[in-house]
């Protein structure tokens, strides 16, 4: 396994001082593909938000080890349903937002960044959506644009929140294939929250399984056995 890129040390996370998950200690390896699994309300989104810096930890610490010494760059792919259709943004304009982290306030986006954004849209198979209104794209098309946007950040870590939710099976396969391909080609660490482990099983080598307020971490084949999957499934429908 590669060296640790993100290390969680006795981390407690939650809202308003009330922990959802406690005493999390684990390491996420550089260039790994990790699936974050768990039933509804198990704390998947809370963990994601804490890793991204959207929520402060209640206790413990998160250490990161970017090779350049600079802070890690997270390419965040949120769920596409959260965006308000009132914004009249084209696919290209949404993807271009990923470059804003490198451009100082008051400066225009240089043509090199625009060209890079077009390249990322092409790589994500979203080139044809660049001129279309983001709000009018289908779930799968929006996901591709959002993945392109995450790539334009030039990320160390790609963080995806249920990227296949509301997406049909064929589009799910294509999106996951692309993510796996981008990880290998661009040496990106992938953290992916999902309900659908069956879909990501081919790609995810590591699993974080949130269960009863604890986080289990290990190799996918060892951790996600058929007995555990059945238990998780029963809890979800129960």
């Amino acid at each position, binding site marked *: 396994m590669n060296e640790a890129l993100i290390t969680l040390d006795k981390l407690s996370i939650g809202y308003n001082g009330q922990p959802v998950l406690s005493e999390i200690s684990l390491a996420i390896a550089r260039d790994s593909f990790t699936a974050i699994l768990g039933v509804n309300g198990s704390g998947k989104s809370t963990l994601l938000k804490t890793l991204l810096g959207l929520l402060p930890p209640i206790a413990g610490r998160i250490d990161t080890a970017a090779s350049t010494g600079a802070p890690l760059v997270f390419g965040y792919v*949120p769920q596409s349903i959260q965006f308000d259709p009132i914004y*009249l943004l084209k696919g290209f304009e949404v993807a271009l937002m990923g470059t804003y982290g490198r451009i100082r306030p008051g400066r225009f986006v240089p043509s090199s960044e625009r060209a890079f954004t077009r390249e990322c849209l092409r790589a994500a198979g979203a080139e044809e959506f660049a001129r279309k209104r983001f709000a009018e794209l289908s779930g799968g098309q929006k996901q591709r644009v959002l993945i392109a946007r995450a790539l334009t950040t030039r990320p160390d870590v790609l963080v995806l929140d249920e990227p296949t939710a509301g997406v049909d099976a064929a589009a799910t396969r294509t999106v996951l294939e692309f993510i796996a391909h981008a990880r290998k080609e661009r040496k990106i660490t992938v953290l992916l929250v999902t309900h659908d482990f069956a879909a990501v099983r081919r790609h995810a080598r590591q699993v974080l399984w949130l269960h009863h307020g604890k986080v289990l971490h290990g190799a996918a084949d060892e951790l996600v056995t058929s007995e555990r999957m059945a238990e998780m499934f029963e809890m979800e429908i129960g």
Partner: protein
Amino acid sequence: METLRLILSPDFLLRNSVYTSVLVGFSCPLVGVFLVMRRLVFMGVALPQISSTGVAVALSLPLWLGFSLTGHGSHSAHVLAFVGSMTFSLTAILVLAFLERRGRGQPEGRLGTAYVVAAALSILLLSKNPYGEIGWLDLLKGEVITVSNFDLLLTAATLALVLAALGLFHKELLLVSFDRAMAITLGKNVVFWDVLLYLLIGLTVSMAVLSVGPLIAFGFLLIPALTAHLFARNMRQFTMLASLVGGATAFLGFWVAYQYDAPVGPTDVVLLGMIYAAAWIIARCLPGNPGKSHKA
């Protein structure tokens, strides 16, 4: 046509009022676009009224403290009114936005209460104030009256500042409004950009209220943006069309009001309402128009 020639004449007595109305008409929709996109339309209703209460309180202060000012045209009265308007606008927008973000209680109830109490309080304060009798009360009721060169200059300078800031920081303000989480992961200070946006909205509202009154300020903040959203296909079109609708209606409103000897404020707002209604019907009839599927 004779009236139009007269209004456009550089010797026209009320030329400053025309220029001020048109300036406000062009500028208010630029910040109104952000109020519409952030779904803060009710705040756009309450804010000008709260701002006008700030004017009333500021002009009552000398009375309470035993000082005297020289009237509506005086610079000191105008500056005092601007400080009052700005203080109330900014405080209100920051408090209301904070409560909105916390997501507790009933936002519509809060804003409705703030609106009606602010309206009553401003009229009450100015009815007991000598400055109310010499023009300020008329202004707060929505009647654009004489605008001095100083007022016009102050309005133009403030609105130029707002315009420059909106142009320079458009990408940051849009990012923070569209996807707050993304902005944080990119290392943007979202609180700073929120406060800057609210400052620009507060500044525009204060200046508009002071120049043309809360009725027109409210009308120009929201209705041009709602109208433009029916037809615009991208953010640039949205912003420019809203500004154009605002500026053109301000001029048209003044022309109609002058022609028929009607108060300018209510004429402007009724015209805006008619334009919005007509635009809504046209948008429904146009095939493939974005206004058909995504409404503000």
